[in-house]
């Protein structure tokens, strides 16, 4: 996600940098127009996600809704209302938090599984590597979305959908976080594995081994720091994918009406028949948010890619 805006090299006053020293990755990314644009959009949405109540008041429910039903935008309701009379502005801003937090948690789960399996696979090699990569390939080929639908339905029926909350997110939506993690770790694992394979052959790993370091120590202290850049760059793309997957899962009816995400709003709009009724205000705001956030992550990912792979930069 958004890295802390603290320059890694020398604080705000360090203008006169010693010659030959490269600025931090974050600075290089923000120096590019696409990186800057993506960053700014994400900061705006992060603010919306952090303090929705401060901006538009508490989340309106069927009980607290006061507006007219399915009314077009007016002064009192800048983005119109839904079929229950709730303000779409209120719903969409609150959904920002749900969508972003689910996306964030799913990214952490995905990247964690992918990075651990990728590093171990590349470093340990042998049978462990063969089996892990077979499974990874399996997940890359099959239509994971259908698997995600079935898994979500089954886990929810088994675990139930109580009102337990984790990090302010209801259990039913935590299911989605876990399912996204299970179904999308494989490309991360593949990328990290191939980087680990090349790191393994470097001299510093041999040196560590010669002085008696164990496998676990080398993976943690020597391999991990060297794949961190790659993990961050990958996480940016995973985040965009996670938001899209959550949106799609919610759209096919796996969202939680008590805690609407953008996808849940779109599903509600479809069920009411908003497109056929001409009620554009119902789904356009949530749709624009999704496209903007995914677009921002794509821009940021592009910028990171260009900064981390100078070869690519020269070609473009």
């Amino acid at each position, binding site marked *: 996600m958004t890295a802390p805006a603290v320059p890694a090299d020398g604080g705000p006053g360090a203008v006169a940098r010693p010659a030959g020293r490269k600025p931090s990755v974050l600075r290089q990314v923000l120096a590019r127009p696409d990186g800057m644009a993506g960053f700014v959009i994400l900061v705006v949405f992060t603010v919306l996600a952090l303090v929705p109540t401060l901006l538009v008041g508490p989340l309106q429910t069927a009980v607290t809704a006061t507006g007219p039903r399915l009314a077009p935008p007016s002064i009192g309701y800048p983005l119109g209302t839904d079929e229950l009379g709730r303000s779409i502005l209120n719903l969409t801003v609150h959904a920002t938090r749900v969508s972003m937090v689910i996306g964030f948690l799913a990214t952490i789960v995905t990247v964690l599984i992918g990075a651990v399996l990728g590093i171990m696979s590349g470093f340990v090699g042998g049978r462990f590597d063969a089996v892990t990569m077979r499974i990874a390939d399996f997940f890359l080929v099959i239509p994971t979305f259908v698997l995600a639908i079935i898994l979500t339905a089954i886990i929810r029926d088994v675990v139930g959908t109580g009102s337990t909350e984790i990090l302010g997110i209801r259990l039913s939506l935590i299911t989605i976080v876990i399912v996204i993690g299970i179904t999308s770790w494989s490309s991360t694992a593949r990328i990290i594995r191939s980087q680990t394979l090349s790191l393994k052959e470097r001299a510093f790993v041999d040196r560590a081994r010669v002085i008696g370091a164990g496998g676990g120590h080398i993976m943690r202290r020597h391999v991990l720091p060297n794949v961190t850049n790659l993990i961050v760059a990958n996480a940016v793309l995973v985040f965009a994918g996670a938001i899209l997957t959550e949106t799609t899962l919610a759209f096919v009816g796996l969202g939680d009406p008590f805690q609407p995400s953008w996808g849940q709003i779109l599903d509600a709009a479809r069920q009411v028949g908003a497109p056929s009724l001409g009620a554009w205000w119902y789904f356009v705001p949530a*749709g624009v948010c999704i496209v903007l956030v995914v677009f921002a992550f794509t821009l940021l990912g592009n910028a990171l890619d260009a900064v981390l792979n100078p070869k690519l930069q020269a070609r*473009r």
Partner: protein
Amino acid sequence: MGSRYLLRRVATACFTIVMIVVLNFVLFRAMPGSPERILLGRMPGVTAEVLAQTRARWGLDKPLFPDQFVAYLNSTAQGDLGFSYAARGRPVTEVLAQHLGPTLLLFGLGEILAIVLGLTLGSYSGWKRGSPVDYVGNAISLILYSMPYFLLGMALLLIFSTGAGWFPTFGMLTAGATYDNPLDVALDLGGHLALPLATVALGLIGQYAILMRSSVVETLSEDYVTTARAMGFRDDRVLRRHALPNAMLPTVTLVAINLGYVVAGAITVEVVFNWPGLGTLTVDALASRDYPVLQGVFLLLSVAVVFANLGADLLYGVLDPRVRT
């Protein structure tokens, strides 16, 4: 083509299909409630005797492995996928077959359109890198790429169906309509098909164009393209005869790999337009927790994607001699 390459690809595909079948079994067993409960429904007052009878009748008293597993493999191999709960006990295979046609029509045509238009747009932007067409094309591709298919579908529905009134809003044929001749059927079908087809094609064009563009850009920096230029060939000949054939190679694999993701889009687009295909079936089955149908859809779509990938691998082997080892 080298037989080892062929053999390895086929073996991988078979292995994947076996894993899919096993996963399907495991998922089915992990289902909430015991299977006999679902078979008996929510009938009150089921005696232990009836329960035991049902278990024996469906082979649930035998151990999960190997007995139940072997029985499952047997019936799956014979094309018996069980019975739908929601469709009043109709065989799952029958339900799937009924919904397969509309999906094939919509996505077959959509893929073809997207491949032709996406590759054309991509190769043109890659060739004219930095031109206005490249900038506009790239921006549009990126926005389409960031947009979930169903959102695009809802927007098109709003603009062209509700707003302009050019197309019907849902279904595959007008309900209750009678036709005088086949042409009327085709016209009605075409009207219903237009918007979902446009959604599918537009959703895919973005991905294919981005892919083709980067592939063309990469190919243009190759030595043989420089050589062709140095030999004095005209620009369009260099592009058509030297750069494009090589630039198209990676797209073969990526189009196949993308199929797995396209399935997700397929499901949602059909839902938006009430298109009576596998996607609508999936969402209906999900709403009524019709697990046998969900499992059937998963099996059918996964196996289809695996075969498409195998086909792409073999095609790649024919097109590019370097991989035949």
